[in-house]
């Protein structure tokens, strides 16, 4: 019985013939095969069943091949899509559509920024603590984390290290609450100037700490702005502005892998990235953002205020022993 299917047609391969064999097994030609291979009566039925089984097997095999071919096409389409996507990115870049290497599109601001009106700075530094503390925290992405690192000091005081880059939009966002927070504990002289992150990197208005000096009875503030916000003459890289010291570099690398921005609160806490998204700030004039600081009813204002509140709390707990009380324990 099992051999009846091999009477006609080609011999199935060992591994590939399973379908025919299975089909034949499922449809046994007859219970009583004719003696001597007679093709009359039940013998005719046997031959017909065998042919039927073979046709079924061929159909199965054709369906399998069709499925395999279709899946193979899907695979090639998937691979082709990825290649096409990468090609589009490269072509757009080479054609200059994505900015980046086209220095002509970049509008630099001086590394130290341009002067900010005194009234604006006063506004930024005089937001009530109660307003900051009552800001909605919906837009907060990350918060300072306590760490047990080596104490960071300068001039006999706890030191707060900020590592950013002027081209970096995340840093641009973070400087707003940072300025608001720092001015609760000390003063800048000279004051920060206004800049924006690189045009092709969000064009986010902000202040720069490059060239500033901060004085506080409680702690020191060490800002390092690694890159400028414009490209070099070749249009390939952002110009380097300040290089971190080896120890700062190591601290930074160990803490967050060396990404911008980074804040170390005297080795007791760190902030590994911007506290809120810079997206709503993109392309806005400096004054439009400054005007929202202290206003908890706008997204930008609430994000800056809530971020400043967290920075202040962290500074109080890590560097000032909760002093001054008016700031730390209002």
């Amino acid at each position, binding site marked *: 019985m099992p051999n009846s299917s091999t009477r006609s047609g080609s011999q199935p391969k060992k*591994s590939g*013939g399973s379908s025919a064999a299975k089909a034949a097994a499922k449809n046994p030609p007859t219970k009583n095969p004719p003696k001597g291979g007679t093709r009359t009566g039940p013998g005719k039925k046997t031959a017909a069943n065998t042919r039927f089984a073979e046709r079924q097997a061929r159909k199965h095999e054709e369906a399998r091949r069709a499925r395999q071919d279709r899946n193979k096409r899907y695979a*090639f389409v998937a691979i082709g899509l*990825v290649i096409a*996507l*990468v090609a589009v990115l490269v072509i757009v870049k080479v054609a200059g559509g994505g900015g980046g290497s086209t220095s002509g599109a970049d509008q630099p601001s001086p590394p130290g920024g341009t002067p900010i009106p005194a009234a604006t700075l006063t506004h930024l530094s005089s937001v009530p603590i109660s307003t900051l503390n009552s800001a909605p925290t919906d837009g907060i992405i990350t918060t300072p984390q306590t760490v047990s690192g080596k104490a960071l000091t300068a001039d006999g005081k706890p030191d707060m290290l900020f590592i950013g880059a002027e081209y970096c939009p995340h840093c641009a966002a973070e400087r707003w609450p940072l300025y608001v927070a720092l001015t609760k504990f000390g003063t800048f002289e000279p004051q920060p100037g206004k800049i924006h992150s690189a045009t092709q990197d969000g064009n986010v208005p902000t202040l720069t700490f490059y060239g500033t000096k901060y004085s506080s009875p409680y702690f020191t503030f060490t800002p390092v702005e690694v890159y400028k916000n414009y490209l070099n003459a*070749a249009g390939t890289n*952002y110009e380097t502005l300040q290089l971190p010291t080896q120890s700062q570099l190591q601290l930074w690398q160990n803490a967050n*892998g060396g*990404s911008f921005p980074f804040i170390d609160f005297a080795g007791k806490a760190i902030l590994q990235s911007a506290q809120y998204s810079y997206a709503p700030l993109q392309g806005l004039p400096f004054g439009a953002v400054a005007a929202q600081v202290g206003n908890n009813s706008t997204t930008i204002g609430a994000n800056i205020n809530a971020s400043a509140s967290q920075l202040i709390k962290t500074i109080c707990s890590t560097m000032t022993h909760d002093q001054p009380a008016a700031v730390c324990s209002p």
Partner: protein
Amino acid sequence: MGEDMPRWPAVVGTVASVLGLGIAGYLTFEHFTSSSSLACADNGVVNCLKVTTSSYSAVAGVPVALLGLVYFAVMLVLQLPPMWRRPEPAVRYGRLAWAVVGVCTIVYLLYAELFAIDALCLWCTGVHVLTFVVFCTTVYATLTYPPPQEALP
């Protein structure tokens, strides 16, 4: 007739994963020590330090290099020949999904390198190429060849 799963997907996938694991391991080591010692040219377009110290080099504080290391460690296990011989859909499609995750990530990272960071990191590019190779192998083999038990006589 149905084809058995050939050996080459497992071989290619394993070799690519081992290489990827090595490069990702090196980048992770450099991240946690000092990436200023990264062996990489700085000729403007290629600037590894700029890429590895950019804001795109970490996701929620986790270095991308470390994520790459984890990716290739998992992928290496999935690409080993015994795993290719396993018929369970969880293994087949899990490997496929992991490969898709990898290729989506490298497209995003390439975008970041080209348009946000404006620099390329050769080591990272090496990882991207290996991820793509693993993706091609996995997609082709998974979709083209039936699960092992189907191929058995």
